[in-house]
C-alpha cells in the first residue's frame, strides 16, 4: 500500500468512527486545502450516501473572497448542510472585542465564536484538518481530543490512544475535537489534491496581488490590515501556502500556477508551513496557549 493510500485508509476509518460514536458531529471547514481534503475523505467514507453531518465555518469576516466562493460552490454541488458561526456577530453582540493597532487580527477571536457555535448546536464532536507536522503543540495532539465544558484542552488529561482504538465516550456538555488527517504532512495533502483532482481556492496558485513587507513577510493588502505609510507596497506574483484570516496570512513570492510546480516549490522550501502564519509567532507557545482555551 502506498503511503497516501495508507493515510487515506486511516483517515476514513477515523471519520467513520466519528459518525458511529457521536450523536451530533460536525466538520470544521475553513475552505483551506486541509479542510477540502477532509471533506473529500468524508464524502468517500459514506459513499454512495451523502455525509451525515454538517460543515461548520467559523467566519472571521476577513476571509479571502476566493475561499468563500469555493465553499459555497462545494456546498451547492454536493447538497451539504453549512452552518456559519460569525465572528462579526460576536463582536456586534459584545461577546468579544476587536483587537486594535498595527498587528490587529481576528484570529484569536475565532475561539469564542467556535465555542458559542458548538454550544448553540450542541455538537459533541468537531472534526478538523489539523496535522501533527504543523506545529509542536499539534505533534502532541490526540486523534480524539477531549475538551471540557469550557472547550479547554488540558494536555495532562488527554486520553492515551492505543493501537487504532478510539475512545469517544464523553459526559454531557463535553465535546471532542477530532483530527482525522493527523498523520499527513503538508506534501501528502498536496499530492492527494493532485491525485484526486480536488478543486482548491485560486489563491493557492500564483496570481498578481498587491502585498507589503512586514516583519520579513509579504502580507496581502486588504481592508482588514492596517498598512502604514512607510510599509513598502508592491504588485507582484504571489501564492498562499496556508489560508487563514487575511490579516494574519502571509504570501510567498511565486510564479507557480500549476500543482506540479507548487509541489516542487514546497518540497524544496526552506521555510516551514506555519512560518507564514503571524498568529503562531506572537509568542513561543502561541499555539499551545490558544489550544488551552479552546482554539481549534
Amino acid at each position, binding site marked *: *500500500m*502506498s*503511503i497516501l493510500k*495508507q493515510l487515506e*485508509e486511516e483517515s*476514513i*476509518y477515523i471519520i*467513520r*468512527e466519528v*459518525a*458511529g460514536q457521536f450523536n451530533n458531529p460536525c466538520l470544521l471547514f475553513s475552505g483551506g486545502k486541509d479542510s477540502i481534503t477532509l471533506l473529500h475523505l468524508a464524502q*468517500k*467514507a*459514506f*459513499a*454512495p*450516501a*451523502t455525509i451525515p453531518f454538517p460543515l461548520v465555518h467559523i467566519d472571521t469576516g476577513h476571509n479571502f473572497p476566493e475561499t468563500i466562493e469555493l465553499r459555497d460552490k462545494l456546498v451547492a454541488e454536493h447538497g451539504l448542510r453549512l452552518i456559519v458561526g460569525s465572528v462579526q456577530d460576536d463582536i456586534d453582540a459584545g461577546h468579544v472585542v476587536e483587537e486594535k493597532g498595527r498587528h490587529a487580527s481576528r484570529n484569536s477571536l475565532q475561539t469564542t465564536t467556535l465555542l458559542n457555535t458548538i454550544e448553540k448546536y450542541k455538537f459533541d464532536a468537531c472534526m478538523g484538518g489539523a496535522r*501533527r*507536522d504543523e506545529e*509542536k*503543540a499539534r*505533534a*502532541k495532539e490526540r486523534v480524539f481530543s477531549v475538551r471540557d465544558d469550557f472547550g479547554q484542552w488540558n*494536555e*495532562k488529561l*488527554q*486520553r*492515551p*490512544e*492505543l*493501537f*487504532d*482504538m478510539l*475512545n469517544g*465516550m*464523553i*459526559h454531557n456538555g463535553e465535546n471532542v475535537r477530532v483530527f482525522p488527517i*493527523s*498523520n499527513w*504532512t503538508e506534501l501528502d495533502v498536496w499530492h492527494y489534491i493532485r491525485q484526486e483532482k480536488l478543486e482548491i481556492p485560486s489563491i493557492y496558485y500564483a496570481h498578481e496581488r498587491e502585498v507589503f513587507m512586514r516583519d520579513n513577510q509579504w502580507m496581502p493588502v486588504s481592508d482588514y490590515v492596517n498598512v502604514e505609510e512607510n510599509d513598502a507596497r508592491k504588485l507582484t506574483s504571489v501564492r498562499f501556502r496556508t489560508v487563514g484570516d487575511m490579516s494574519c496570512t502571509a504570501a510567498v513570492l511565486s510564479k507557480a500556477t500549476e500543482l506540479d510546480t507548487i509541489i516542487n516549490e514546497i518540497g524544496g*522550501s*526552506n*521555510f*516551514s508551513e506555519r*512560518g507564514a502564519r503571524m498568529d503562531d509567532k506572537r509568542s*513561543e*507557545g502561541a499555539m*499551545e*496557549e490558544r489550544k488551552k482555551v479552546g482554539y481549534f
Partner: protein
Amino acid sequence: MELIKIATAGSVDDGKSTLIGRLLYETGALKTDQIQHIEEKSAARGFGYLDLSLATDGLLTEREQGITIDVSHIFFSTPKRRFIIADSPGHVEYTRNMVTGTSTAQASIILLDARKGVIEQTKRHFFITQLLGIKQIIFAINKMDLVDYSQDVFENIKTTLERLVDKHGQDGVSYHYTPVSALYNENVVRASDKLNWHKGAPLLSLIESIPLESNQANDGAFQIQYVIRPKREELHDYRGFAGNVRSGSFAVGDAINIHPSGRKSVIKRIEKYGESTEQISAGENGTILLVDEIDASRGDSILNEKANVNNGKNITATFCWMQDTPFTTGNKYWLQQGIQRSLVKVQNVRSKIDLEALENRQANQLGLNDIGKGALALAQPITTKSYKNNPALGAFILIDPNTFNTAGVGFIETT
C-alpha cells in the same frame, strides 16, 4: 516509499530529544525558520552548540522544566523511507505513555546513557516492547562522547543487555546494538571515526533497512463501523456495512457469519468508497453488501466462515494500568476491542510484574503504571483471539465507566 513507525523510549536526560532533533536536523526536516529559532534559544541559554532537543520539546510546561511529558509524533524522511517517531518520555510515572507510543510502532529504539548502562528504566522499556510484540529492537547506547568512545564500556553494556534478552526475550525478535553520540553526530547518520571499532551500520541506515512485518493472521474478521443507507429512491434497497478488515481478507462470494447473531450469508458485493472491488484485506476499509437482508449494526462483526476466533464471554489477559484508581476484583469497565464494546467485570487479579526483577509477584490489584495478569467476565460476547496469534483481535482498552477515561489496556493470553 514505505512508512515506518518507530517508538523511542529513554530515561530522563539520556539525550533522547537530542537524538531525535539530530535526526530531524540531518535529514533536512528542520526548516530555516525552525533552525533559526533553535539557534536563538540555544544562544539565549548560553549554550555553545545547537541544542537540538529544542526541536521536539513541544509544550511550554516541558520547556520550562526541560523535560518531555507526553507522546509526541515526529516526522522525517529519507529517500528510502518515511518515518513517524512516537516519542514517549521515560520517567517511571509515564509508563502509560510508553505503552501508548509503542502500540502503533513496528520498531523500537531504547536509549541508554553509556555512563549509566542498564538501569531499571531500560528493563521496563524492554519489557514493554516484549509485551507489545515489537519485532525490531534497537538498543542505542548514547553519550559515547562522555566515556571517550570506549569499546569496553559499550561491550559491557551489550553483554548485560544480551543476558536480559536471553532471559526474557520473545521468539522471532531482532536485536540491534549501536553506540552513538547524538550531541556530536557520531554514528547517527554516518559511520564514525571515533567509533571505528563498531562494525554495524549507523543508526539512520539501520532504521532505513530493518524489515517491516504485517499481521499474518488469516482469520477473516471485519468490524462494522457504520451502516450506509442512502436516502435516495434509486438506492432504496442499498444497505452497506462500512467498516475495517481487522485480519485476513474478504472476497465477493465468501460465506460469512455475523457476530453475535450467528446469522449466515454470502458476500454479494464489496465497495471501496462507492466503487466496486473484488477483495479487501487486513488494514483496509470497505463496504460489504450481503445477498440476504440481514440485520446487523455498528459493533457487530462479519466473520469469514473459516475464521478461527473466540466468541466467548471470558478473557484472561495481561493488563497495563493507566489511571490512579486501581484495577481490582469486582470493578466494572467498558471494554473496547477495535470498535466492539462490552461491559466487563474484573473476575480476579492474579499477579503483578516486578519491573526491577522482571518477575511475577502475587497481587490483588494494579495501580497506575502497573503491569499484571487477571481475568474479565463480559456482559456481551465479543470476537477475540490471543494477542500473540492475532494482534488486531487480541488487544483491547478498558474505559472507566465514571470518568470515561481510557483506564488501561489488555493483551489477551493464549488459552
